[in-house]
């Protein structure tokens, strides 16, 4: 047997705990009051287009992109705009949001095809596809929420050679991409074709970890109907779902320090994003709902839900069976990169891939001790950095040293904090250092532009 491919540098093996892998998607009920933030993506906040008292239809544009890296926001329900006010989001900070009280009857915006029929023909030109994706406000659904249309417009002089579809889902607990591949296989294939057409590429590879044999088998079977798409099984290892790690695993190419996947001729899109692109292009459906896994070791009924954006997590959890007893921590997203929630009033956003419960005994950090120089963090870092050093120099505010040691190449996967035998908060500090250095770089760039 040939050894399965995986990325070369570092990586860890957390218990995958995919309890909800065999649970088909269930539609969650509409929220009573949808709270839709205008910053659900990386980049500039969208500009609010509605005002208090306005009636909106499902799928109506309520906030428009306000810059090159920004995304449109659509209403996920039919109802009345109650207020435009600050609302807490998963970061624990209050940000501008549009509150929409849901009507009993749902009215869709004109031109949206809500049927489940598969549309295979792609009559659109690459420009039209990018325009449609932009209009629908599609962003990366893996969690990074980078506007998809920007990824589909490579900078001049650079040409994509491959499209890689990310079906790795290396985060423990989460199973939404797995279910999407099983239940929306054909949509995924057409979506991949659309991405290939938009980028003018004839080769696409779907990377799937070998803990999802059913998805590998099913997609391998149906991919024969669609030319140019191959399925690549991969050996399980976290963080294989990182763009750069996935490219390294599949093609053996190394994205240069500070570079983007397009520098090695690749564009990576998540499975969920690809289906969203399919819906946006073929059905004119804006991104108003997403798939969310609700799970946890102490959660009796782990499951996958299709949830409208803006549904408060409280309502989703109630529908899923309520917060289990003895819960010490609730995380939005996956356990490795997600954020602990400070309130259940936080709504589901475009990047919310899961709600994970942790029992009290597993919820707490252990007190940290001095570094014992075991270099485990160095050996697991998928970016080839020295986390112990980056933490120390950040602690001492020696940001120039941090910069020389490529702190900006950190992908914030958390492998270092996961593996550290003395429980040092490595990623916490590295994130601070990375942000500070990024701010410095941005300030320098702005100054240069002025000159």
């Amino acid at each position, binding site marked *: 047997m040939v050894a399965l491919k995986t990325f070369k540098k570092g990586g860890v093996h957390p218990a995958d705990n995919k309890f909800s892998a065999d649970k088909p998607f269930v539609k969650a009920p509409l929220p009573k009051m949808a709270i839709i933030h205008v910053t659900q993506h990386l980049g500039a906040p969208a500009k609010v287009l509605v005002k208090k008292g306005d009636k909106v239809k499902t799928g109506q544009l309520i906030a428009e992109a306000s810059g090159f890296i920004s995304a449109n926001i659509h209403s996920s329900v039919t109802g009345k705009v109650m207020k435009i006010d600050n609302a807490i989001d998963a970061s*624990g*900070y209050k940000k501008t949001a549009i509150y929409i009280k849901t009507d009993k009857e749902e009215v869709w915006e004109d031109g949206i095809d809500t049927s489940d029929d598969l549309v295979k023909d792609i009559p659109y030109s690459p420009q039209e596809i990018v325009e449609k994706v932009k209009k629908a406000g599609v962003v990366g659904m893996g969690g990074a929420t980078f506007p998809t249309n920007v990824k589909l417009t490579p900078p001049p002089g650079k040409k994509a050679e491959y499209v890689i579809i990310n079906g790795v889902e290396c985060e423990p607990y989460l199973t939404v991409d797995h279910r999407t591949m099983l239940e929306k296989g054909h949509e995924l294939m057409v979506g991949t074709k659309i991405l290939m057409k938009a980028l003018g590429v004839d080769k696409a590879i779907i990377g799937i970890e070998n803990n999802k044999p059913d998805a590998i088998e099913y997609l391998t079977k149906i991919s024969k109907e669609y030319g140019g798409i191959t399925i690549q099984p991969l050996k399980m290892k976290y963080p294989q779902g990182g763009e750069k790690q996935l490219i390294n695993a599949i093609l053996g190419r190394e994205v240069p320090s500070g570079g983007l996947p397009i520098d090695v001729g690749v564009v990576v899109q998540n499975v969920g994003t690809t289906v969203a692109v399919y819906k946006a292009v073929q059905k004119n459906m804006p991104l108003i709902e997403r798939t969310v896994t609700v799970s946890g070791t102490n959660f009796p009924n782990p499951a996958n839900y299709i949830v409208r954006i803006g549904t408060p997590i409280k309502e989703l959890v109630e529908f899923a069976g309520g917060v289990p007893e003895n819960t010490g921590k609730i995380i939005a997203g996956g356990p490795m990169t997600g954020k602990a929630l400070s309130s259940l009033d936080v709504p589901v956003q475009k990047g919310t891939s899961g709600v994970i419960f942790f029992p009290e005994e597993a919820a707490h950090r252990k007190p940290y001790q001095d570094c014992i120089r075991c270099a485990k963090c160095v050996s697991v870092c998928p970016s080839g950095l020295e986390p112990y050093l980056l933490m120390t120099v950040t602690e001492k505010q020696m940001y120039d040293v941090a910069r020389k040691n490529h702190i900006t190449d950190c992908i914030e996967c958390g492998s270092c904090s996961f593996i550290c035998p003395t429980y040092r908060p490595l990623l*916490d500090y590295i994130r601070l250092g990375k942000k500070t250095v990024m701010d410095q770089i941005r300030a320098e760039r702005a100054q240069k532009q002025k000159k």
Partner: protein
Amino acid sequence: MSEVLLNSILTLGAVAVVSAIILYFVAQKFKVEEDPRIDDIEEALPSANCGGCGYPGCRAFAEACAKADNLDNLYCPVGGNDVMKKVAEILGMEVQEQRRQVAVVRCAGSYEHREHHNVYEGPENCAVAHQLYGGETDCHYGCLGLADCVRACDFDALHMDEKTGLPVVDEDKCTACGACVEACPRDIIELRVLGKRDRKIFVSCINEDPAGPAKKACSVACIGCGLCYDACKFDAITMYDNLAYIDDKKCVLCRACVEVCPTGAIWEVNFPPRKPKPAKKKAAATAKKANETKGQTTAKPINISDLPKEDKPKEEKTEAKQPEVKQDENKTEEKKNETNENNN
């Protein structure tokens, strides 16, 4: 034996003499002309090397002083006016006296005023916590209580109050070097000019939320009601982002704003105790009215249980503030004694 000894002494001695001559001429040749006043100035400076003046260390500041045409933009916050006078004397220049500044913590959200509804377990570092999330309370502007400012202070002028979870500035030790201002990721600490007898009035809140959420998150928040703005006759108060800000340069310390503030967000420090009762604005006002109606003008202690219920949280606030107030009282008394002596 003695010959060997003599030989070595003579040889070494000769080498020493030759080297000394070479060194002398080299030193003459490569002599660096330096303003001798720089050394004098450095001598006069406090040698704290804190960077509060804006220069990297006392030596650099001394050099800047020696080069400068006037001392208008140069000021050593640690040494204060005394040191600057000495520096001016050395340089033969004039120096304008500056009013003393101290660091002021603009957050009063102690444990009792702000409900903590989640637990932060990350590293004890404000900058990390601030970047991570909004904090343990609903107020996303207020103090995180992880003591970045205390660690930044070179003068031991800050410490965390365990009861309130907030940093406390020791005004006697504070040199206004600004290290804590820079360290605070939420810009809570500000350097403010002190008035007469080290008095100051400031808004102890930077929550920019509208009144409802602000008050819900913290009972002593500034709710941006504007009552103080209306009360101020000296244009010292500006309103922005649901917040009042008192300009320390314009404030005449009349305390009109303190009296009208409905949440007690405006603090007065180093003032003598009020009549009839210190620091309890609304209660004092009510008591005054009550006394007037009774025709009594003498100060009488108020029974707290007689007051309307909404005033009770205020009582807590006074308690929280007590250590500081007490200290201040002592100080004012001392000052009074001093003035008395002077008069005598």
